[in-house]
């Protein structure tokens, strides 16, 4: 096992990792920017090293500073958390070169999964269902029309180098394809300097379902059920659940088998997530693999009773995934609400500032992962998430009711937060029924509350 782990992150995930390490008897090193001198990860780590100024590029993303801190403190491993350097293959490689264990998959795995088309091909090889689409790049409209005919409309025309919705067009009927093709090509060319396109079947009314996997040092992976992450705003997840209200045991088994195949195909090591789109006929398609521990990992921990962080640290220390983890049974239902320092009344704009009071809910089934406190100044330099409220109940309904009670008790003063927004989503009949897709928040109307929050 490791003696000392450096945490190349901040906020709640840094604290989450510190807790797991200390429970395992491992010392910790916090690194921090000058903006984070009063942050909790600095207080609770065994030691702390200031690595740079507030800007991430010169601190939490600055590889030389982090490597220096690891060397100066004799850390034998680095945990990247999520975000920042978590999926940076170069950083993972540098750690490997320096003989410091990177607590994530091998750099080559990160690189492979970071390349959309390579990941897609790898999954096809592994027998994991991918969205039906063209094999490779389409060079002209004629080919696109022919391919689309085979896939069936509607289709998506997508830039090979794409991202962030650019170079992407949804096409409903064949007559609209030529124009969309040219538009997407131009957009891709100007945005990415690469006009390569491919055509995929459009998945209508999809849900975002992801499966937690843990790859052991022996190349064997286990899957720990699914998470329902369809409640998203502009691709930002806001509420996650486990299990999904539409996944039954049979579908869960299929999803888990596919995720294990995906992970074992690449000899995946450690904690990862395989994301799928689920259509309204219970078909699922590989979307991407996240090669890190995710923000929403606690919902899986709550229903399976497994500490994913401790398990993850173990596999990187060469310990196989314990048998009882592989055999863990789903118990009850868990929901996570991301509490962000954002103003839901003003297009969720980030609202950094001073937290003047901070009272967290407690009691049966209530877990709060946070690095905030009364007197903490939410920094403008970083992510606006200030707390995760994770609630467990015996059924989905009782978990929702308990989450509502916990949100009611959660008091944050000084800055606006997404708490009232979550309260409204949880009261929404469509949300409560479990019938929703990734489009849910597009039509959901947040109502300013009558009384002041």
């Amino acid at each position, binding site marked *: 096992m490791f003696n000392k782990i450096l945490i190349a992150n901040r906020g709640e995930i840094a604290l989450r990792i510190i807790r797991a390490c200390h429970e395992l008897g491992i010392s910790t090193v916090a690194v921090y920017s000058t903006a984070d001198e009063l942050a909790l990860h600095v207080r609770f780590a065994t030691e702390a090293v200031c690595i740079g100024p507030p800007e991430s590029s010169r601190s939490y993303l600055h590889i030389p500073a982090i490597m220096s801190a690891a060397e*100066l403190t004799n850390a034998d491993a680095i945990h990247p958390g999520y975000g920042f350097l978590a999926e940076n293959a170069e950083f993972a490689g540098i750690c490997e070169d320096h003989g410091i264990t990177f607590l994530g998959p091998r750099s080559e795995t990160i690189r492979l999964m970071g390349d959309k088309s390579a990941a897609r091909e790898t999954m096809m090889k592994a027998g994991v269902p991918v969205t039906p689409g063209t094999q490779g790049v389409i060079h002209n409209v004629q080919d696109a029309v022919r391919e689309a005919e085979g896939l069936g409309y509607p289709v998506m025309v997508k830039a090979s180098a794409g991202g962030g919705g650019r170079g992407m067009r949804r096409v409903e009927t064949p007559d609209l394809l030529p124009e969309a093709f040219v538009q997407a090509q131009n957009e891709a060319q100007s945005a990415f300097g690469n006009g390569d396109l491919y055509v995929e079947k459009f998945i209508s009314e999809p849900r975002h379902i992801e499966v937690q996997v843990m790859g052991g040092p022996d190349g064997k992976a286990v899957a720990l059920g699914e998470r329902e992450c369809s409640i998203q705003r502009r691709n930002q997840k806001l509420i996650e659940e486990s299990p999904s209200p539409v996944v039954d045991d049979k579908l869960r088994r299929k999803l888990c088998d596919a995720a294990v195949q995906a992970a074992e195909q690449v000899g995946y090591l450690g904690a990862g997530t395989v994301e799928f789109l689920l259509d309204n006929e219970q078909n699922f398609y590989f979307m991407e693999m996240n090669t890190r521990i995710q923000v929403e990992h606690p919902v899986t921990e709550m229903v399976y009773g497994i500490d994913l962080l401790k398990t993850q640290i173990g596999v990187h220390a060469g310990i196989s995934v314990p048998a009882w983890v592989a055999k863990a049974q789903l118990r009850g239902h868990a929901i996570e609400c991301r509490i962000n320092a954002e103003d839901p009344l003003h297009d969720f704009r980030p609202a950094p500032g001073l937290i003047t009071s901070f009272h967290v809910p407690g009691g049966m089934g209530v877990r709060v992962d946070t690095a905030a406190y009364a007197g*903490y100044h939410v920094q403008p330099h970083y992510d606006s998430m200030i707390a995760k409220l994770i609630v467990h109940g015996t059924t989905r309904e009782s978990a929702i009711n308990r989450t509502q009670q916990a949100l009611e008790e959660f008091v944050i003063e000084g800055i606006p937060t997404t708490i009232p927004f979550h309260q409204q989503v949880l009261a929404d009949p469509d949300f409560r029924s479990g019938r929703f897709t990734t489009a849910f928040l597009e039509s959901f109307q947040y109502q300013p509350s009558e009384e002041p929050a």
Partner: protein
Amino acid sequence: MFKDKIKELIAIVEESNVHEVEVSTWWGRKIRVQKNSSFSPNSSSAAEVQAGSPLTVTTSSGQGPEVVAEEPVSEAERDYSKLHQITAPIVGTFYRAPSPDSAPYINVGDKVSAGQVICIIEAMKIMNEIESDANGTVVDILVENTNPVEYNQPLIVVDPS
């Protein structure tokens, strides 16, 4: 950084018609800067630094200013607060000389000028030459040779006068 904040607060109070500013965190420190109301405005200012508690009963007496420091400030640091400090621009290991056999770049009493190399900080096997950012006389060297330094840690004190 922490001392900067105190200085900043003192400046805010001195330059304003506000008579008290207090900043604290439950686990961190409480900084309270107040003009003493028994004295005439602007005649004095007090910095009170305490192990923090996020408030409740704050009783400020009209007596003289009180200074309580959570982290005892060394005499050295206190004396140098008005001199120029050169701080570490990167994390790494501090070396006073280019090699174990060489003479140190600088010694106490030396004159330095801006741009002159004053030490080395090694990070990831790279020897980074650190230059002075001021002209003046070296008053103190705050870090022992081969010790680790954090970002922003004061290294060398220069008297620019």
